[in-house]
């Protein structure tokens, strides 16, 4: 597929005269393609040139701009470190966000502290923005827990592995915010693959019907493991919103400024009672789906290379350098910080203890359960029986 092919791909239904007629008009198709490209909100081009958009403006201080750069570099470093740790056998699995830093940092930095995030399992950059310690994200990938951080300490819910399920939780949470009369907003992350899930459609319905303050942030990274976006949809994903009765917008997902501006606007709509909005961040998963995947089996190098030219970090750096907002000393400082983060993550993971065996029985229920109690006692006695045997063996 071509890199922007998802949106422009026309119906392949054969035998239809109307389709044939449409195909016979390349000029019209070209105009449609152009219109589609115009829909992509962009504030920073892949070449690092600042451009304006009629609907979405942004005005950031040099510190804020540098902050976004730092966030993206450190997130990428953390991600790379996690991939390495998986290769070394320290993690069982890792879902890399490589290439999606702008989508995550831009949207993550648009949030207020009192807003609430419902992530998938790849939102390492958003977690970073929320102040979740990156090492906390690694427990589930190491196999020592299924998440385990306190969602309410950073208003960042646990990672959700069942695709799309969290969009309903986000919607319900937003309905609760609305009942409380609060002006917080909720953001639900999901991907192009999840857009096919019934739960996502139901969350669109519920949020629209109740006018819930939720932003649906879809990172269209073009691939759901091995399936390209055209296996999920025949219309650009952002257009799905229209049928549910709320606006959708496609943003350049590799442009951190555009992601920030659009998400901010969407959150503002939500908190002022204007209901949900869908943001489709058009981006690319540069790496594999997870460390268990082999993308060379299903996609071409040229495609990945074309997206490499749109790298989110490089374009911001080009801009910052051109504007004289960073110098070598600053960049070297970030490098140093990045190395320190990598080291800290490595050490933290290697030092992460296995949970106590009896943790199997913990927190199954909030108020307890007789069967769990019985099985806990039986298993403890079973284990203790070996301790007795060991002691006896030692005595003999």
């Amino acid at each position: 597929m071509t890199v922007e092919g998802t949106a422009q791909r026309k119906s392949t239904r054969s035998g239809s005269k109307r389709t044939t007629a449409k195909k016979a008009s390349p000029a019209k198709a070209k105009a449609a393609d152009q219109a589609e490209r115009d829909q992509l909100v962009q504030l920073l081009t892949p070449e690092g040139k600042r451009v304006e958009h009629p609907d979405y403006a942004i005005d950031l201080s040099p510190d804020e701009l540098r902050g976004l750069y730092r966030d993206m570099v450190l997130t990428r470093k953390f991600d790379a470190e996690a991939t390495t740790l998986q290769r070394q056998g320290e993690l069982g699995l890792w879902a890399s966000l490589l290439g999606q830093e702008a989508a995550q940092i831009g949207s993550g930095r648009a949030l207020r502290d009192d807003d609430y995030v419902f992530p998938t399992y790849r939102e390492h950059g958003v977690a970073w923005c929320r102040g979740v310690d990156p090492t906390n994200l690694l427990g589930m990938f190491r196999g020592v827990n299924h998440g385990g951080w306190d969602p309410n300490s950073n208003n960042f819910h646990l990672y959700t592995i069942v695709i799309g399920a969290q969009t309903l939780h986000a919607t319900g949470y937003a309905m609760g915010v609305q009942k409380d009369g609060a002006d917080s907003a909720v953001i639900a992350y999901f991907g192009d693959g999840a857009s096919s899930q019934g739960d996502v459609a139901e969350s669109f319905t519920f949020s629209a019907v109740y006018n819930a303050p939720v932003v649906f942030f879809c990172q269209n990274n073009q691939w759901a493991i091995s399936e390209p976006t055209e296996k999920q949809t025949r219309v650009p994903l952002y257009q799905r919103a229209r049928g549910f009765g709320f606006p959708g917008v496609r943003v350049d997902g590799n442009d951190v400024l555009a992601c920030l501006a659009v998400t901010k606007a969407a959150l503002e709509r939500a908190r002022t009672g204007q209901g949900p909005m869908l943001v489709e961040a058009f981006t690319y998963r540069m790496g594999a789906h997870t460390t268990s995947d082999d993308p060379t089996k299903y996609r071409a190098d040229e495609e990945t290379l074309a997206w490499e030219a749109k790298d989110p970090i490089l374009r911001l750096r080009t801009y910052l350098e051109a504007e004289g907002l960073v110098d070598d000393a600053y960049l070297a400082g970030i490098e140093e910080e990045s190395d320190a983060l990598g080291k800290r993550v490595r050490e933290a993971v290697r030092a992460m203890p296995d949970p106590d065996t009896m943790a199997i029985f913990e927190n199954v229920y909030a108020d307890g359960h007789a069967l769990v109690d019985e099985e806990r006692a039986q298993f403890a006695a079973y284990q203790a029986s070996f301790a007795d045997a060991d002691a006896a063996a030692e005595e003999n």
Partner: protein
Amino acid sequence: MAVHEKITIAKAINASLRASMEADPKVLVMGEDVGKLGGVFRVTDGLQKDFGEDRVIDTPLAESGIVGTAIGMALRGYRPVVEIQFDGFVFPAYDQIVTQLAKMHARALGKVKVPVVIRIPYAGGIGAVEHHSESPEALFAHVAGLKCVTPSNASDAYWMLQQAIAGDDPVIYFEPKRRYHDKSRLDTEAIPDPLHKARVTQAGSDLTLAAYGPMVKVCTDVAKVAAEEGKSVEVVDLRSLSPVDFDTVQASVEKTGRLVLVHEAPVFLGMGAEIAARITERCFYHLEAPVLRVGGFHSPYPPSRLEDEYLPGLDRVLDAVDRALAY
């Protein structure tokens, strides 16, 4: 009014929801048609009028959406009581219930609670079309993280629902729909039994019948007929299906030496299978006969003209009683 001499299960559930909503402003009722209509069985009749659309929520017709948004509201601090219109319609929500609701507390290492109660009118006997008469309780009781309860009378319906709502765990509350209009006594100032305790509703010495929900009445009738034939049958109303109060069943079986389990759900891998296994283990030397089960067949729930044959009735239970006593 503290004592209702004769109140239907449906009205008792309504009164229970009302009491819960009055006691705790975080309690919400949500589901399809629960508002203006008061539910297809009128169980939530009048609640929206009194508590408003904000607390008694007519939802879109999407069960996964109902349970999924209820989870989100619980995470925000609410206590949603969800109605699934009929047993056979719960399955679109099964994913949310099993993969999300049941596991959320454990995944968060106890740091969040999801006190969602899911009310499901279940089981047959009302002459309905397909998907309206099923008994899927074992599919939920099997899942760690969920609690499952089912009342058989108005008093339990009233108290058990409030206890479920007040607890911090997700509870599936199965309502025996063919008993909705059966009347019994309710004292709203009584001290209720603990939610997960079984109850001996009829004392006997020759055999224990253990049942729950709609089959408790059948078993009570069986005990009467058996008594006329000189057989003393004890009836245990299990009330809670997860956890099961094995101690109460065990104590009964140690006394009677015989156990017959009765439910509408298919026998194969049903609640009776688990209880038979556990009681055999606990009461091996007390048993005078193998533990027997009476229940549905390994077939889809039949068209309603056949349901009287399909459902365990007086005669089929008596037959099992006779077989157990023949050892």
